[in-house]
Structure formats: structure tokens, C-alpha cells
């Protein structure tokens, strides 16, 4: 089990590859993003993407699974305060084989929780022709220690407030919409 100290700045790695299947693209799109560009071959051919493509949210979910299988399930993960930016650069199509790399951009201890580290990570997802299809600038909370027998850090009353650990949090207040 990996803890915070395993993720120093500059640490890099690769994630296990993922083959995108047509069934998975359609299943995700039917439930969460039923737009023609993700579901309908004829309509998708006329769209800006040029063919049926995975929902960007599906691409995110696929990368999340690659991260879990790559290292996160073997890490003292304490969740995530969010992502600074996700870029959908090229469409992800059925049949594509995705690979991904990660690089630790910043690692520091939490100010509010001394048992927790804050790790800023950059992910880059490539398809089989080497083109970058998606990037994430993302923050992980990772425990500094393990508690014997539990395999994860102990529960404490969460203080998951924006701005404390999810840095940088520019403009968060203005990002919230007005109350209806």
C-alpha cells in the first residue's frame, strides 16, 4: 500500500491500457449523455466529431478506472477535492486503445489534516496513433500513514471545504451560480 511519501514532485508512471468498446460507449451514453453524437451513427457522421464518439464524461470515467487499476486501489487514497482543468482534445472512438501517463506536479501536507497529503497530478491520455486525446490537472488526497488492519486512513470528521486544500482555488465563489 502506497502512502503520500510515494508521490514526490516529478514522480511519473504509466497506467494500464484500455480498449474502448462500442458497447461501453453506447451503454454510458444511453444512461448519462444520450446525444446523437454519442449514439447515432448517421447523426454522428455529420457532427463536428465525424463519427460516433465516447462522451467526454465517459472518457473521464475510463481514465478514473485506469488510475484505480494503475495505483490508486493500492494507495491510501482519501478522495479528491477536484480538478483544475480537464481538456477533451480529440474524440475517443470505439476501437481506440488508450494509454496514459501521470506526473506529480506538486506534493505537500494538508494544512487542516496533518495525516493527509495533497498531491497535484497531471494525467495525459493517448490513443494508439500517439495523439493526446485528454489531459487532467487533478488533485488527490493521499494519507501519510496506514492504520494497521484497515488498509486505509482512519475516519475523522471531514473538513472538506473549498480553498483549504483544493488549491489553487481561484474564483471559486464566483463560480457558484446564484441561488434560484
Amino acid at each position: 500500500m502506497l502512502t503520500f511519501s510515494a508521490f514526490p514532485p516529478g514522480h511519473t508512471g504509466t497506467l494500464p491500457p484500455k480498449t474502448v468498446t462500442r458497447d461501453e460507449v453506447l451503454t454510458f451514453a444511453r444512461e448519462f449523455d444520450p446525444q446523437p453524437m454519442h449514439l447515432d451513427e448517421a447523426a454522428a457522421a455529420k457532427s463536428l466529431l465525424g463519427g460516433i464518439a465516447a462522451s467526454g464524461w465517459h472518457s473521464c470515467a475510463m481514465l478514473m478506472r485506469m488510475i484505480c487499476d494503475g495505483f490508486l486501489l493500492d494507495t491510501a487514497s482519501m478522495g479528491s477535492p477536484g480538478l483544475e482543468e480537464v481538456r477533451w482534445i480529440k474524440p475517443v472512438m470505439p476501437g481506440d486503445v488508450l494509454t496514459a501517463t501521470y506526473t506529480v506536479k506538486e506534493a505537500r501536507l494538508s494544512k487542516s489534516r496533518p495525516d493527509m497529503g495533497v498531491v497535484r497530478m497531471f494525467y495525459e491520455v493517448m490513443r494508439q496513433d500517439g495523439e493526446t486525446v485528454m489531459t487532467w490537472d487533478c488533485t488527490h488526497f493521499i494519507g501519510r500513514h496506514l492504520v494497521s488492519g484497515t488498509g486505509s486512513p482512519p475516519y475523522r470528521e471531514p473538513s472538506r471545504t473549498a480553498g483549504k486544500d483544493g488549491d489553487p482555488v481561484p474564483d471559486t465563489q464566483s463560480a457558484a451560480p446564484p441561488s434560484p
Partner: protein
Amino acid sequence: MSLFLEDYHRGDAIALGTHLFTAESIKAFAAFYDPQPFHLDEAAAKSSVFGSLSASGWHTAAVWMKLMVAYELKLTTEILARGETPGRLGPSPGFRQMRFLKPVHAGDIIAYTTSVRATEPWPGRPKWGLLLSDNAGVNQRGETVFIFIGRVLVERRTPLAQK
């Protein structure tokens, strides 16, 4: 928002509806996409930082999209029923500043909103522009659990003059 880019004005806000996150749906999503113990197993979640079973942030986000698409479909249908032409929505180049502010626990009902933040030109595509939106999910206790700035291409009614 199946309108043309010119129809969006900063501050225009829309309630997209609510969604109940059941334990079954949280675990089903997690099993496919985010099988961390606190998203998958009540007992493991209890001893984790979340305190009880919690939805993957990507589940919370995907439901925003689900409600957004349903709203778009309703609006497009209304526009067509009036005999008018809806503006087309294009792809999204991504999003910014997504924050998971509070866990979404099993049984939580999240109310989603979207509002217009700004519109911008999109280089190289005079028939399209970028719509920026402020989006949020609020739970049944009134706590904002999730926010992000959306970015999506929207068709212009009148293409920009080419330089």
C-alpha cells in the same frame, strides 16, 4: 440550452432537476469506473474519510450531464413545436475548476443548476462560439456538493465576419 450563442446572457440560470443517489446506483457506477472502497462497500466506507458510502465524483458529474441533456431535448422540442430552428450544440473542449466540496452519500438528493457565465469567440470556427457556464449540485440540506465551469461550442445565428 438549444439556443444560438447570441441568445445566452450572463446570469441566465436554469434548474435542471434533482437526482436521488441510491446505494445500488453508487455501487454500480463505482464497480465499473471508480472501485475505491468508499464508493463500493458500506463497511469500508464507514472506516474511511467519508464516513459512509459516497458516490464517485464522476458519478455526480455524469448525472449533471444526464439532466442537462434531458433539458436540452425538452427545449429543442419546444423550439421545433413553435416552428423555429434550434441552435446546434457542438462538442466541449473540456471544463475547469471542478470542486467536490462535500461527499454525496447514499440517499442524498442532489438538485443541479446551470447558469450562463460568458460567451466567447472560438478561434478558427466563425459559425460557432464558446459558451461558459457555472454549474452546481446542492444536496437536500442546502449544501453545495459540487461545482464546475462548463465549456461547450454553440452555433451562432450569424457567423462572425472572416478576417
